Structure formats: C-alpha cells, structure tokens
C-alpha cells in the first residue's frame, strides 16, 4: 500500500541453528553421557544382545508417549492409558478363551483401545469436562472392569504365532517392537511437524480460543487425539501381552506416569503448546538406558524410580539454573 514496501525476511536463524540451541540437543548430550557411564560401569553393557534387550524397557511406553505428546501439546492429557492396556489385554484374553486366533486378537486389542479413546474423547470434547478428571475416572473404570472380569485369575494360552509381536526379531538383534517403535516415531514425527493436523495441534495448545476463531475445528482435533492415544494403548497392549504371554489385571500398572514422564522429559510443555517428537524419541532412549544400566548394577526397582524422578527434575531445572547463573 506504500510505494516503499519493506522486505521482511522469512527467517533470521536457519532451522539448523535453532535446533542446535534446543532442548533436544541438550537431551542428546545427556543420553550420550549415560551411555558412556553405563559402558564404564558394567562390562556386560556393550553387547549387541544386551542393548537389544534394553530397548524393551521403553518401546511399548514410547508408542503411547508419541500420541500422548500430541495430546499434551494440545493442552489435554490422558491418564487412563495403562488402564486401557489392562482392559485391552483382558479383552484379548477373553477372546483367546473363546477360541479366537491371532488376527482376531489383534482386532480385539486395537478395537478396545479405540473404544476407550473414543469414550475419553466424548467426555472431554462433547461434555466439556476437564481431561485430567475424566481420565483419572476412566483409569479406575477401565482397570476396575479388568479386575471384575479376571479376579485373581490369569489368562494364558495365547497362540504361538501371537508371540511374535513381543518376542519376535525382524533381523538379527532388531526386534519387531523396535521396528514398530521406529515406524511409529516416523509417522508421529511427520504428523506433528509436517501436516496441517500437526499445525492445528500447536495452535490449539497455544490458544484454543484463537484456534477456534481461526476456523480450526478444535473439538474434532482433540477427539482424534484421544482416539489415537487409545489406539496406541491398544497397540502397546498387544505387544506387552505377547511379550509376557499372559494377562493379569495388574498388567502395566503405573505406566501412565512413566509415559507422562517420558513426554515431559522429551521437552513437551506440560501446559501445552510446544515440544517435538524427536525430543520424545531421545527421552525414550534416555529412560531405557538409565533403567537398563541400573538393572545391570542390580539396583532395585524402587531406587530406579527415584533415579528417573531425579533425572526428570534435574533435566528440567538445568536450563533454568543455567540462565539464573548467567544472569548473576
């Protein structure tokens, strides 16, 4: 509108420059440090099969963490994920009792996950209830159903070809779960960072009102995110049930907090609006390495959760301490 229009550059910093200064870079350094510490601490660590075993510590949780990352970026949360695993695993166990084969089991596992996700999504987006309350409720509900169905019983007798999902190897030490983890990481990375849907997720997380006023169908996007989180819990249920070969109602107990920890450690803002999938991938490795390294040193489980908790607080406090120290 004026004759001398000023040229505004696209960017001042290249995306690479931005990335180097990011949270993900810091986390990657932490991962390398832990890897080196582990290889000094235990002679058994630097072994292809040990490392392969170590990946089972995080693959199933990380699958859920990808969907949870999107959900938390959008400003919501799902604390019922571990309970969905229990319900999906119980449903698969019941299907086995009824004589179902592996393909049916897969459908039952995925279907249960989707139904649970849809139920959460309905309560949050249609009824307008806060997701933290809704999913604390469905956490008890879903696992409660498992307890009622199973009591102190155990479902076993899964068909032998069902074992592949949790115990199979695709190539040498590369397990099926690790491959699935990598594929899902790619899919979620593209979904969040390269599509219109991902852009909508960020917009909603930063300002739901502004997103609505910009023509984004906020409720629909959130519903899909709950659906995806349910679906991922279903996939995790298939892998975990296959790996254990049995279903108890206490399966995956407490995993929801580990998943949220992984997401937050990965640099996703718990208040929504920012974070990346590569961050979650690195966080998954960090948590897997720590758990495995401590396991090799025969550290009991309760101490491990203390270490993970301390790690979470430490990594989050570090940048703030750094800037406080620099400001002095």
């Amino acid at each position, binding site marked *: 509108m004026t004759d001398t*229009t000023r040229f505004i550059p696209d960017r001042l910093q290249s995306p690479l420059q931005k990335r180097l200064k990011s949270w993900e870079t810091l986390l990657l350094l932490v991962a390398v440090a832990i890897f080196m510490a582990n290889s000094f601490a235990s002679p058994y660590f630097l072994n292809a099969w040990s490392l392969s075993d170590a990946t089972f510590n995080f693959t199933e949780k990380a699958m859920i963490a990808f969907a949870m990352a999107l959900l938390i970026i959008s400003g919501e949360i799902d604390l019922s994920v571990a309970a969905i695993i229990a319900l999906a695993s119980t449903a698969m166990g019941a299907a086995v009792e009824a004589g179902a084969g592996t393909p049916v089991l897969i459908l039952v596992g995925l279907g249960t996950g989707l139904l649970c996700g849809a139920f959460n999504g309905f309560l949050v987006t249609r009824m307008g209830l806060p997701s933290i309350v809704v999913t604390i409720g469905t956490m008890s509900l879903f696992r409660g159903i498992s307890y009622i169905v199973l009591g102190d019983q155990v479902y076993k007798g899964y068909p032998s070809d069902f074992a592949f999902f949790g115990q199979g190897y695709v190539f040498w030490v590369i397990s099926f779960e690790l491959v699935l983890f990598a594929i899902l990481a790619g899919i979620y990375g593209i979904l969040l960072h390269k599509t219109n849907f991902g852009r909508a997720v960020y917009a909603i997380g930063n300002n739901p*009102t502004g997103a609505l006023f910009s023509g984004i169908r906020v409720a629909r996007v959130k519903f899909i995110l709950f659906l995806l989180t349910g679906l991922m819990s279903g996939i995790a249920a298939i892998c975990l049930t296959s790996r254990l070969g049995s279903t108890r109602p206490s399966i995956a107990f407490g995993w929801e907090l580990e998943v949220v920890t992984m997401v937050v450690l990965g640099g996703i803002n718990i208040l929504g609006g920012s974070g990346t999938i590569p961050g979650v991938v690195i966080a998954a490795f960090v948590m897997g390495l720590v758990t495995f390294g401590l396991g090799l040193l025969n550290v009991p489980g309760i101490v491990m959760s203390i270490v993970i908790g301390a790690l979470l607080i430490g990594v989050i406090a570090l940048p703030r301490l750094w800037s406080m120290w620099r400001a002095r």
Partner: protein
Amino acid sequence: MLMHTQTDAAAATAPILALDGITKTFPGVKALDGVSLRLFPGQVTALVGENGAGKSTVVKTLTGIYQPDGGDILLDGAATRFATPQDAAKVGITAIHQETVLFDELSVAENIFIGHAPRGKFGLIDWTTMQRRATEILRSIGAQIDPGHKLRDLGIANKHLVAIARALSIDARVVIMDEPTAALSHKEIQELYELVETLKAQGKAILFISHKFDEIFRIADRYTVFRDGQFVGDGLIDDVTESELVKMMVGRDVSQVFPQRESHIGDEVLQVVGYDHPTEFADIGFTLRRGEILGFYGLVGAGRSEFMQALFGITKPSKGVTKIDGMIRIIRSPADAIIHGVVYVPEDRGKQGAITALPIFQNVTLPSLGRTSHRGFLRLAEEFSLAREYTQRLDLRAASLDTDVGNLSGGNQQKVVIAKWLATQPKVIILDEPTKGIDIGSKAAVHEFMAELAAQGLAVIMVSSEIPEILGMSDRVIVMREGRIATELAGEDLTPETLVRHAAGI
C-alpha cells in the same frame, strides 16, 4: 490553578478532591492531557465522554492504581500523591467499578471487609465485630442481605450492593461509581438513586460515570466533560442542556484524518434476517453490498460483538437466516463461515485474534492451510510467500516472518490478524473495533487499507465505538441499543449528535 472560574453558589464550598492539570502517557497514547476535575462534598459530579476519552484512566489515577506523569492531586486543597491503592483508600477514596472484583466463595461480610478486617487478640480476625459492622453498613444502604451468606448465592443486584457496602466500609469521603447501572434492572436502578441521595446527605463527594443521559440529568449536580484525554468543560447540570453536553463530547472536525474515498457499491452479498438470541440481541436484520463499509455503532454492551460472533458461528443464535450471494448458508462454526467467505477480526487481539506464541507466517496461514498445503502436508515455501504477500500489503514492520506475534506492537499484531483474514480471500470481512488500543500511525494504515479493500469490492462491516472512525469510514451506519437495531443512518442524517442520541436512546 483551575482552568475554569465559576460563579455558581457551590464554589463557596471547597472541593474535597481536585485534579489539576493531570497528564498520563502510555506508550504511543496520551491518555490524559492536562485534565482537571473537582469533587465537592454532598454533590454528585457526572463525568461524561466518549469511549477512550480518559474516564477510566482518571478513576485509576484517583484510586492510586496509576501514577500521573504531571499535574497535582489536591486533597482538601493540599497536594498529595497516592503511591498505591491502599494510600487512596486510607484517605477515604473508594471506587465501585463496572465489574467489581468480589469473591464468590467468601461470605458477604468477608467480601465487605477483605483487606481491612477488624482484628482481635493475636491479630486474628474479630468475626463478631465484622459481622456486626457488616450488618450496620448493609442496613445503612437499605440492603436486605444476611452478611453470613456466601456471595455466590446472591443475585447480580445484591452483589452490587455488597460492592457498595465494601466501598463504604472504609469510611469513604469520595465515592467513585463507574457505570454502576450497567447491569441493573429498572427497579434496582431506582434503589441505587435513593442510595446516592443517602450518600449525598452524608456529605460524601460522588463521581458518577455514565453513558446514560437520563440518569445524569436525574441525579448529578455537576458535570465534567472529557474528550480524547482533554478537559473540555464543567459546570452545573442545571445550566446545561442535553444537546450542549453531546456537542461538548463529540464536537470536533474529523474529515481530514480519514482517507478520501469514492464508494463503488455493487451487488448485494450478505443478507441477514431475524437473528435472535435469548439474552444478547433480538431481531437483527440488514443487507450488505460489495464495496460498502457498513458501520455498527453503539454503547459498550449494546450486543454488537455478540451478534457478530453469532454471524461468524462462535455463539449459537436461537434463530436467524444468513444468505450469502442469495443462497441460504448454515454457519455453525468459524470453519463454516470461512468456507462461505465471511471472516471476523475480533476485538480481543491477544486472545481471539492472534496466537501470540506462534510465528507471524503460521498465524497468517492458519485459516488458509487448505490452500498452502498439498494433501494435508505443509508446504513452508507456499506459506512464506502467502504470508509475505499479505503482510507487505499491510506494511507490516517485523524483523522476520518467523518472529512470534507476541513480540510485535499492538498495531503490527492487528496487521497480522487482518492479513490472516485477507489471505482467505473473503467476501465479507467483519472488523470489531479494528483500531482499539493501537497507535495513530497504525490506525491510519488500517483505515487506508479498509478503504482500499472496499474499493476492490470487498464488503466490510466495521464495529466501532469511536464516533470519528464511524463517521470517517462508513457509507451507512446501523446503531444498536440494548441488543436491537435502534436505527440506520446515512448521508446527512449521519452526525455525531444523531449517533449519540440513538445509541443512548434520548
């Protein structure tokens, strides 16, 4: 030194509180420019002025929320300053705001005494005394409220009485009422008038801020008029007529500030029929043509924004039909509205207009992602070029398109929001208070651009509370009052006086 010397009888009594030459500057705006105001004991002074005249700033200066940059505050003739709201409260200055800050979960007595509760042994709250004094104060203003009730159980009018009781609990000498009747029913307003009489009889000085002329002439003894942060005049209500007061409020030459434009009005693009809402508006209907700028004028709370948001699919009207290019269109969400070519630039930029934590280019392309992307996948190059095209047309000033919108000035943020909507290539653009709170330079840019859009055949609806803007930009003006269309004005009928009269219902 006061700017006006007066010969009226009231001058015999000295003012309790006076402002002399007060100036207050905010970045880019001179909110108060050497204003004076005098408040006399036992008298009601009405402060009148358009939106943006500086009334709220004066209230905040009197109550210690803002510190003036220049001028004197005189208390009983002696210069003083209020560094904090507590300082102002200590000398007995109290304000009842449009939307009073009260606490729903606390009792009536606690609300009245919050911050200055009577203390007993060990500094603990003396509940018995508090209860007794609350009862006394409520009785003195004729309120039938149990001080033990929780505030949330009270109706809006009773809440207002609690706010007044709270104001009186500090033994006020000066009571400021900022549009106190805005939320009250007719009967409640009568009760408020009686209360004002009671306060007058007690010798308190009252500053009464209102847009409603009938109530100003009903209860005020004196008036003071501000315009654009400047003092225009004051005097006794008995010496002035309504039309003189209106002239003082709006009288100024507005023509040269706005772009000269020749309207080329085309075919009808939008027709709205019978829009109703249970509480906010009723029976709204009008038509809009290409190339036309239709102004919507009214007082704050007249239902203009609420109606526009219904038209845009944010709130649901109970009934109403929208026709675009002659076809009935159902708009249930902003996404629907955008598809049909209707877009809305909201008044609240930070919350509704922009997503301040995201960069400029992402804000601009957000509603247009369908066009810049390919099968749902983002194409950044397309996004940057679309964002560049529209932000340059608006002469945006920014370091880069990757800068977060939150780091821009208000005027540049508004340019980003307008660019965002133009990028969708709409048929109808609704601008809600498009220049509110932005600097003069950006204002002119937005006005010039609005004229250019209309010249290109876009239909523009402009909601504005600023009379010069309405007069300077609109081809036609719809005036709304209390949720209804009061009148439609164009041509010679379109004057500041007619606007104010219809908006206030005189």
